[in-house]
């Protein structure tokens, strides 16, 4: 009885402390560590929401006549609707899933454009060092008492593996994941070891190897990002959301010129798999894989999905044409 009374008292104290924390420190802490949490609250009643990673942004070091985001270009097509974006660099379906769950069920936002970055399905992204910070933020996207979430951050109750551990996992994938090619292209590391463009010091060789490392994988049902997108689909069906999956453009031309048809075929095969899977679930999938030329990609020394003004406008146009029948 004595213990029961004290437990009740403890529970009351915890509830009070949670209320005090939420009224005082919570907003400042979340703003610093999980700003998207606050973004969701601001835009929860918009008509269309564009969710993406850094691909939405214009390049930082290139002067453009219209340095706006893809989402802003899309909104130009729909001047009469409220169109907003949530962006977080390096984020992916795992984060988008948590963000979608943050939207209140009774919010007015019902249409979402969600980027589907093919690279984010690969082992070097799923085990990236940047995951630790994203995982930390994701703790706050869970609807638990604020004080409990803050405690879980302090306890590191999320996947916060060290850089060494993550790198070891990536290497494991590159050594062991079997690609649909005969040796020596049967694994990423074997493929990278194949002579092309001279030795390791050659910049073309280095970039070619990066294309193999970033796109040398086969997407299947067990891929963690596929599971995240599946969860997004389930949530969308439950809440009656309209979704457009925006498969981002990749630098196919450069991949082809540096590595050859094998890598571009693999990229196409993966995208086809995604298109089939999510179209079959009844969602709109916009395939931008081949939408852009090599010159539209602003990063020249690493494969990314950062586009110049023309590239962003092309993507925006494709999304807008798929979005139009949905919102009209």
């Amino acid at each position, binding site marked *: 009885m*004595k*213990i029961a009374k004290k437990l009740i*008292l*403890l529970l009351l*104290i*915890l509830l009070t*402390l949670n209320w*005090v*924390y939420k009224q005082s*420190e919570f907003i400042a802490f979340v703003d610093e*560590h999980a700003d998207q949490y606050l973004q969701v609250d601001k835009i929860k009643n918009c008509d269309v929401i564009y969710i993406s990673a850094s691909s939405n942004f214009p390049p930082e070091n290139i002067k453009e006549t219209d340095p706006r985001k893809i989402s802003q270009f899309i909104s130009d097509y729909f001047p009469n609707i409220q169109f907003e974006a949530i962006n977080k660099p390096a984020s992916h379906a795992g984060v988008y899933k948590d963000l979608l769950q943050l939207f209140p069920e009774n919010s007015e936002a019902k249409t979402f454009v969600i980027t589907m970055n093919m690279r984010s399905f690969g082992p070097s992204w799923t085990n990236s060092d940047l995951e630790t910070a994203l995982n*930390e933020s994701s703790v706050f996207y869970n609807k638990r008492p604020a*004080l*409990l979430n*803050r*405690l*879980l*951050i*302090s*306890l*590191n*109750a999320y996947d*916060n593996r060290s850089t060494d551990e993550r790198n070891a996992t990536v290497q494991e994938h590159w050594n062991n994941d079997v690609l649909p090619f005969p040796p020596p292209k049967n694994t990423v590391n074997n493929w990278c070891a194949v002579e092309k463009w001279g030795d390791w010091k050659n910049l073309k060789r280095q970039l070619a190897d990066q294309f193999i490392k970033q796109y040398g994988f086969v997407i299947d049902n067990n891929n963690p990002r596929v599971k995240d997108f599946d969860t997004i689909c389930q949530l969308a069906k439950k809440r009656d959301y309209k979704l457009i999956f925006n498969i981002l453009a990749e630098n196919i031309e450069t991949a082809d010129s540096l590595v050859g048809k094998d890598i571009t075929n693999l990229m196409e095969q993966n995208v086809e798999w995604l298109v089939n899977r999510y179209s079959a679930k009844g969602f709109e999938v916009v395939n931008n894989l081949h939408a852009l030329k090599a010159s539209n990609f602003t990063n020249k020394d690493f494969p990314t999905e950062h586009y110049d003004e023309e590239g962003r406008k092309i993507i925006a146009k494709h999304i807008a044409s798929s979005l139009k029948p949905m919102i009209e």
Partner: protein
Amino acid sequence: MLFNSLPFLIFLPSVVAVYFLLPQRWRWMLLLAASYFFYGYWKVEYLGLILFSTTVDFFTAQYIATANDQIKKKIGLSISLVTNLGLLALFKYSGWFMADVLHPVSVINEVQLENFQSFWSFALPVGISFYTFQTLGYTIDVYYGRAVPEKNPFKFALFVSFFPQLVAGPIERFSHLYKQLFTEQQFRYAFLQQGGRLILYGLFIKMCVADNISPMVDQIFEQQNEASSLQLVLGTVLFGVQIYSDFHGYSLIAIGTARLLGIELMDNFNAPYTATSIREFWSKWHISLSTWFRDYLFIPLGGNRVSRVKLTTNILIVFIVSGLWHGANWTFVAWGAIHGFSYMMERWFISKDTAPWLQFPRWIATMIIVFIAWIFFRSESIEMAANYLTNAVSSTSAGITIEWSTISLSFIGIFLLSDIHFKNRSIHSWLNEQSILVRWSVYSFLIFSITGFAGITNHPFIYFQF
């Protein structure tokens, strides 16, 4: 499993609940299973090592106890010493030996050294120095006839692996811990109360004080060439507070965890930064280790009853070994040597006059030595420590931008004041004297601080690496 982790917050209440629900005869088995689970949670491979150490010491203790002459007893003790110290040498010191001894004379090349170091740094088992010293203490006690060897190897395994103090102490004596592990206990509310209070306060000083200071200390030590003299002095003081709050926090959680099970562990700290001499400091800092060295090294070397020269040598040996115990680096040797040398100076040249007016200057002098020694303890090499010290007295830099947090500084203040207040007693006994309103206000403050303001980077306890 870290004490300040979610798995432990689930593990501990489960173990305590099942422990008191089980009949007495099963309880030690639960503790043994829980302890091995706790340790194996880090890496299953670690279990092989603790099992090996336990097996060797179990059989050598039996052998020593049944040996009918002194030579056989010595052989038994030697096996235990060689095995335990050999494990320590292999896992902790071989990398250092290769880098600082074999590599400079070109016995091994750079690549061989890197391969070796990457393997052994990865393989260094958590808490190996703690449990090897605990089990070594047992065989030495059996050798001197101070302990009767346990006949059940599984019960002995529990003594070696008892999870609250397995990875960072307090290093317990067989005579103190062993009986308690098997004594019949009825559940008492006082266990929950005492243990809960110690754990709560331990978590506060670890998570709110140590973990909040850590980024500032890291920054100052990393940017020691850009920091101003004042910042470097402050960095030293902050590290002193960090390591104390980190280790003291761990010890309190360990003691509190054992208390939940009705078991009392020895205290490890008693307001060490109030010491007015190095001698006093060592009676208040990491007490379980300093008394271990006293009982199992200093006294066997002859204790105080030897010539002045021998005593000087013995004191230096004890302090340098104590430094080396912390890790394989010359910085730890320097740290031990500074303490040993200061201890001797005090012993030979400082009068034992206890006049009150002398206390403050003595306290200042003691703290200067202690904190200078911390610079060596924290630095990665002797050169870096020397550089830090030089900059601390002669830096002309305008300084670096350090993100001070008012709340962290408040926590430091609260911790240091309460530490002085709890000198010679525990937070538990202090709380007992307070009204219910004060008690629950303190609980609320601690809970709110831990849940709302703990450091966001969860650093493993510093002493886990030793």
